[in-house]
């Protein structure tokens, strides 16, 4: 499909917007429909679209195997790490309000707790997004691999 | 009854367990290896004997090793019956050790280290069984004996040896797992304990039918006692080297079998309960059948060891019979027969092994005139066979006498007839051997030319000693009878 100029041009135009939309979905995941999972899938889809229109080698040049592997791990690590940070901050696992620390008992307690839990959720969403995107890519690359390699 | 808490029974056991390790490590130095065997045998006997005076005073020595689970305890109790068995076994182990060394070296057998290790391990288990304080411990060592002797039975690693060993393990492991363990489960369920008690533990705990079932399961499950129809392993196990047949299949293994049966009869059921159940007589007839049948089969065997094996089957049933008649005299006769039969039968096996090692003969028909070349051996054989038949003053007479008295006391004349008939049969299958050895001409072509057949001292001395032993027991049976009376008191 490499020679189809229309597809290549359209993809080149669309992919940045697709990815921007993905970031939007991730960023608004805490209170509205969306979130890391959906956003991640969209990012993954954008990469898959790129590979379909520009071919495997080109795709792997953009997102090499080590990068997707790293993203795979890093996303989950972020997720789990935030959970552990909650423990270190004195709460239960994934108890984001623990991040509020002393502010949880101050005059802006409600605000602080709200902020802390949003921060926590954002971190989680980003982690999930990274992992899902990477997993989508990995599955695609692995299954689309040629027989001879 | 006074109870002494002491770890001595454990030491008696552990001596040979330590020896197993030492023997294993000195596999490169045969002399050192054999030294460990003999040292362990002597020390073991000494420890066992050191407990005899206390037991004769009516005390028991108890030691609890570990409680695996509530109700499942590895415990030891030295009582008269146990010490009788342990003393016999450990004494004969000393003689057998010497004899084994002679046998193994003369025949240049392979895997001697494994042989001596398994031997010592078996002795550990035998003493453990003798001193077991409860049915679980007894079962444990009963099974351990089966496993430790398996390599000994299959020692030759020939197809026949393997077949024999397989039969051996199938019979012994199979019956004990299928029936004995079942009986133990039922006993525990009924009585809530497995601890041996001189009154029995089962009385009044379950229905008559259930108790009968337990009884039958126990008798069927203790195949080591060689009661028909589970006797076939014994002739099959004769593929083993002769010292193994001698000590294990005349003393340790089969005696553990009858010992277990006696334990079950006297200490799990208790005499009173057996009288109540009224199964003693039926079982006695059943056992009598084994006595007679095995004797008949023995008559037909030309292979010396096979004949001895069937004789063992028959003699073991005397012991069980004695217990089943449920009279004091017959019980004494049965218990004493454990020791008497051990001494006599080991002599016979020693002789068979000696003949094989020195002259490479296994069949009775080849024995014509052999007494000229091996006079001591055949003399010992003669004495031991007299004991088997029950001629005074040799040991066998004592037990047979008590058995006969017991059968009269129990007004059980058919059993008396069985005893007499079996005496005739014993004579019929033992005396011709002696006759052949002493009075027939040897056939020239039977011998390898240029090879001088003569007695091997290290093998001849033990068998003479055991023969003398059985005479001494026959002349002075008081010691054993005292112990036996302690048991049933």
């Amino acid at each position: 499909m490499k020679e189809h100029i229309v597809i290549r041009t359209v993809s080149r135009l669309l992919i940045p917007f697709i990815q921007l939309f993905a970031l939007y979905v991730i960023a608004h995941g805490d209170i509205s429909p969306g979130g890391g999972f959906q956003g991640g899938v969209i990012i993954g889809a954008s990469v898959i679209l790129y590979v379909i229109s520009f071919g495997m080698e080109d795709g792997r040049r953009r997102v090499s195997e080590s990068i997707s592997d790293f993203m795979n791990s890093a996303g989950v690590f972020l997720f789990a790490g935030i959970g552990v940070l909650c423990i270190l901050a004195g709460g239960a696992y994934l108890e984001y309000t623990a991040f509020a620390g002393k502010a949880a008992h101050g005059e802006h307690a409600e605000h602080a707790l709200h902020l802390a839990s949003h921060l926590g959720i954002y971190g989680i969403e980003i982690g999930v997004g990274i992992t899902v995107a990477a997993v989508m890519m990995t599955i695609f690359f692995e299954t689309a691999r040629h027989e001879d390699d | 009854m006074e109870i002494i808490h002491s770890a001595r029974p454990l030491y008696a056991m552990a001596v040979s367990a330590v020896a197993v390790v030492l023997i294993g490590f000195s596999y490169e130095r045969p002399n050192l290896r054999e030294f460990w065997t003999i040292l362990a045998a002597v020390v073991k006997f000494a420890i066992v004997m050191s407990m005899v005076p206390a037991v004769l005073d009516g005390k028991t020595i108890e030691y609890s090793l570990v409680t695996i689970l509530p109700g499942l305890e590895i415990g030891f109790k030295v009582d008269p019956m146990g010490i009788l068995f342990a003393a016999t076994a450990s004494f004969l182990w000393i003689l057998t050790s010497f004899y084994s060394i002679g046998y193994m070296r003369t025949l240049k057998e392979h895997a001697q280290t494994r042989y001596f290790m398994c031997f010592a391990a078996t002795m550990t288990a035998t003493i453990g069984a003798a001193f077991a304080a409860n049915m679980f411990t007894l079962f444990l060592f009963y099974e351990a004996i089966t496993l430790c002797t398996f390599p000994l039975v299959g020692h030759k690693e020939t197809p026949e040896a393997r077949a024999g060993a397989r039969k051996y393990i199938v019979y012994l492991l199979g019956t004990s797992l299928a029936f004995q363990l079942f009986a133990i489960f039922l006993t525990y369920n009924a009585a809530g304990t497995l601890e041996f008690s001189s009154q029995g533990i089962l009385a009044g705990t379950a229905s008559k039918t259930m108790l009968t079932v337990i009884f039958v399961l126990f008798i069927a499950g203790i195949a080591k006692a060689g009661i028909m129809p589970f006797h076939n392993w014994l002739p099959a196990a004769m593929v083993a080297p002769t010292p193994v047949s001698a000590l294990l299949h005349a003393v340790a293994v089969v005696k553990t079998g009858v010992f277990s049966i006696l334990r079950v009869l006297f200490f799990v059921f208790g005499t009173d309960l057996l009288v109540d159940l009224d199964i003693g007589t039926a079982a006695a007839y059943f056992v009598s059948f084994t006595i007679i049948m095995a004797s008949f089969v023995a008559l037909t065997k030309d292979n010396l060891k096979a004949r001895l094996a069937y004789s063992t089957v028959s003699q073991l049933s005397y012991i069980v019979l004695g217990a089943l008649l449920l009279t004091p005299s017959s019980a004494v006769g049965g218990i004493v027969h454990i020791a008497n039969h051990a001494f006599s039968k080991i002599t016979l096996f020693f002789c068979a092994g000696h003949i094989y090692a020195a002259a490479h003969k296994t069949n009775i028909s080849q024995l014509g005139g052999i007494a000229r070349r091996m006079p001591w051996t055949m003399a010992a054989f003669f004495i031991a066979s007299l004991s088997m038949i029950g001629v005074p003053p040799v040991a066998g007479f004592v037990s047979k006498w008590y058995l006969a008295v017991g059968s009269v006391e129990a007004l059980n004349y058919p059993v008396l007839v069985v005893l007499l008939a079996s005496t005739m049969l014993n004579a019929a299958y033992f005396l011709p051997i002696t006759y052949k050895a002493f009075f027939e001409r040897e056939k020239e072509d039977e011998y390898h030319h240029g090879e001088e057949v003569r007695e091997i001292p290290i093998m001849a001395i033990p068998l003479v000693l055991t023969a003398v032993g059985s005479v001494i027991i026959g002349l002075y049976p008081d010691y054993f009878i005292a112990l036996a009376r302690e048991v049933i008191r």
Partner: protein
Amino acid sequence: MISAENLPILVIIIPLISAIITPLVGRIHRSIGWLVALLATSLSFAYSLALIRSVMENGPISYWLGGWEPPWGIEYVVTPFNGLVLCVVSFITIVITLYARKSIEQDVSESKIPFFYSLYLLFFTGLMGIVITGDIFNLYVFIEISALSGYALVAMGRERDALIASYNYLILGTIGASFIVLGIGYLYMVTGTLNMADLSARLPELYDSTTVRSAFAFFMVGLSLKLALFPFHIWLPNVYTHSPSTVSALMAATSTKVSAYVLLRLMFTVYRPEFVLTVVPVTKILLVLAALAIIIGSVIALAQTNIKRMLAYSSVGQIGYIILGASIANQASMTGSLMHIFNHALMKGSLFMVVGAMVYRTGIVNIEDMRGMGKKMPFAMAAFTIGALSMIGFPFTVGFVSKWYLAVGALKADMWYFIPIILLSSLLTAVYFWRIVEAIYFREKSEKLAGLPSEPAEAPFGMTATTLFLSLLCIVFGIAAFIPTKVAAAAAKLLLGG
């Protein structure tokens, strides 16, 4: 810093994080993956031990994930029952990790080793999660985590048949898991809660509801598939036969045990004993299935020529024991059942490890070729003999302890007819193990074995030592049985609602 009350989550999160970082650090050096796995499993085990000690002293522990109070949030619960299983699973996994290093170097291509350990840890995480969670949907998620990594682990086997085994396992496993999730949906529909304790409180008044009963049926079928309870066992022999030795050992020792745990947990703590015993007497069906599993598993094992397959069928039989004890459902039999979870993990683990060591050194998997192996690999074969004796149920080994409890339990429940079944299977087990023991010690070396170079004889130290260690534990806990029994008895009491 990390306080004691966070232990329940740490048991899960440490292997999870380690699983994530293994592929990354594995790039630096391939043995780091192994080190991470070892560290993670050891920490998990240490925490599990700390947990069970605390539980035995201070009573059950409840942990609220994210600080959300149950039944709204996910709750992790530790009781004597799952504390025991936690310890068993993590302990066995440590031993197998130690064993895995050399074995995996041979079984898995070098570039895949970090991924192997990653999956291995994920599998472990899933199992621990299944055991510790108190939320029924979370349970499903963990079941899937362990199952998915399990499929991938099986597919790493050396032969191409491993792929087929893994595929069939995947299909059946997914059916099982989907049934479970349907059951969860039914329960949620009528109760509106996913918390197990909450469910348990709400369900009794709904026992007559068809929905609740269908949910139970879904659970039973789904879990029987996961558990490989006869007749749902068809995936198991292929999986055990074709997966890498380490995976066979791990799965045989842990994953079916954990499924058995889930079954017990659902039967007795989500539903109550009275439900499974009287309202819907499913235990009666399970008794029959268990008895069939015990006998048929042993009979089929008898006919096998491949040692791994034989052990697999023997596992089918042994799972029957666990279910039998649970279905008789009295204190003694339940204790026996729980003990058998632990004991069977020890013996089957060690047996599979012996086979792994043998495959590592000689490549032999056929029983026929094992003749004379005792002369080549004396230590491994000693371990095999101990394992075999334990499987037979020889006194002084762990196998006897659980059989004892099962038998006593059966007699207490007046179900004496199970005793002949137990004993018959012991006999069959004796037959199929003893013929191997005899062959390895009392026969000339097979042609295949004789054709191999005599040195080196034993598998590497790490493999031999761990195998022996596990088999020695079969004896140690056969003598010192009172230690695990104490926990098992407490757990059994809890399950039976006492």
